[in-house]
């Protein structure tokens, strides 16, 4: 572990507050902290399904620089983060459902390749890295096509950066 969580001093314990507004501000800042950590955890767990580059900036970011936010700005920040967390959870759920259906399709392709002739399924759709593609192809080319011999094959992976010819000595 790069930085032990045990070493982090949680200094955000509730303290006596002088006014209701300050209590509200402290509460909002606590909520912002929790939501920000939740969003970070979703991004870190879901990568590469969800890329950090896909996350839009919050509309609440209108202050233009570091400052002490007003109560309204803190509320907008909290609401924006809550919306973002909800949106990211939805994206992750959709992606998980998409990968599940892709895995089911692959299973069906393996069981009955003849029903899925020339169907291609990139491994990225299954939530895996790399450039491989599962494809239903005829065994022995034209003969297999005519005879109905179908098989599921996985392509060899990502293309070489300079092409096959350049890789030769």
């Amino acid at each position: 572990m790069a930085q032990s969580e045990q070493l982090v001093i949680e200094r955000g314990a509730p303290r006596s507050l002088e006014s209701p507004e300050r209590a509200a501000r402290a509460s909002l800042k606590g909520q912002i902290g929790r939501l920000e950590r939740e969003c970070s955890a979703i991004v870190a767990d879901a990568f590469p399904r969800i890329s950090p580059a896909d996350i839009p900036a919050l509309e609440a970011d209108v202050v233009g620089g570091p400052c002490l936010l007003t109560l309204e700005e803190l509320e907008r920040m909290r609401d924006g983060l809550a919306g973002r967390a909800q949106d990211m959870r939805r994206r992750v759920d959709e992606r998980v459902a998409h990968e599940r259906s892709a895995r089911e399709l692959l299973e069906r392709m393996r069981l009955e390749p003849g029903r899925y002739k020339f169907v291609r399924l990139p491994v990225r759709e299954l939530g895996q890295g790399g450039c491989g593609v599962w494809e239903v192809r005829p065994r022995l080319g034209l003969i297999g096509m005519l005879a109905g011999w179908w098989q599921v094959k996985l392509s060899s992976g990502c293309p070489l950066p300079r092409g096959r010819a350049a890789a030769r000595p």
Partner: protein
Amino acid sequence: MADPPPAPERPEDSEPALGWCAREVEQEFPELRLLLVQARVGRPGSLTDGSTPAVEDRLRELSNRFRGAWAVGVRREPVPAAYRVFFRQIGLDPEVLRTPIEAAALERMLRGGFISAGLLEDVLLISLVDTSVPVWALDAECVDGPLGIRQSKEGEPLGRSAGAPSLPAGRLVIADASAALAVLFGEPAPGHGAGAGTRRLTLFAVVVAGVPALYVEEALWTCRMALEQQ
């Protein structure tokens, strides 16, 4: 087998000094701190000239250690996460204005490694990657009195140089007794950062809630020791 070389001892005055914090800032962020150390440049050459072989080796080692998965996952580590949360609480979106450690991670990915950019930059980068705590350097000759954190006044210049940009009211700044020297988490104002001929530096780091003081002291001490080496 030979004994390993002894670890360098910390100088006696290695304890960082505590900067001041304006009352309204302290009330809003009771755990916000500014820690400072003074450093004297040990080598005779320019601070912006090439680094020592040891520093360049360390950069290469860090480049090899940190890869793509780290660049994405760093945001959930405790110290970077604490800075992200603080960014939100002061109105910054860390997806737009990245925290220093995430900016370094992105640079590492885009450039294929931590590229040496002169002794000072390299030393600050190494301490950032090691601890996730950003450290900034000011030319100590340009600092007038103790440093602290306060809000800017409307139209106040950023720095003391002619043509300094003016700040809007309420911006959080690092300031000395007479002027704002840097926007919080921003680079020092023109003419106040450490340059090629700087011999004495004021190094400072910002401590936010959730960041152990030990990490910050380590970051400052790492920078100071590297800069003071001959």
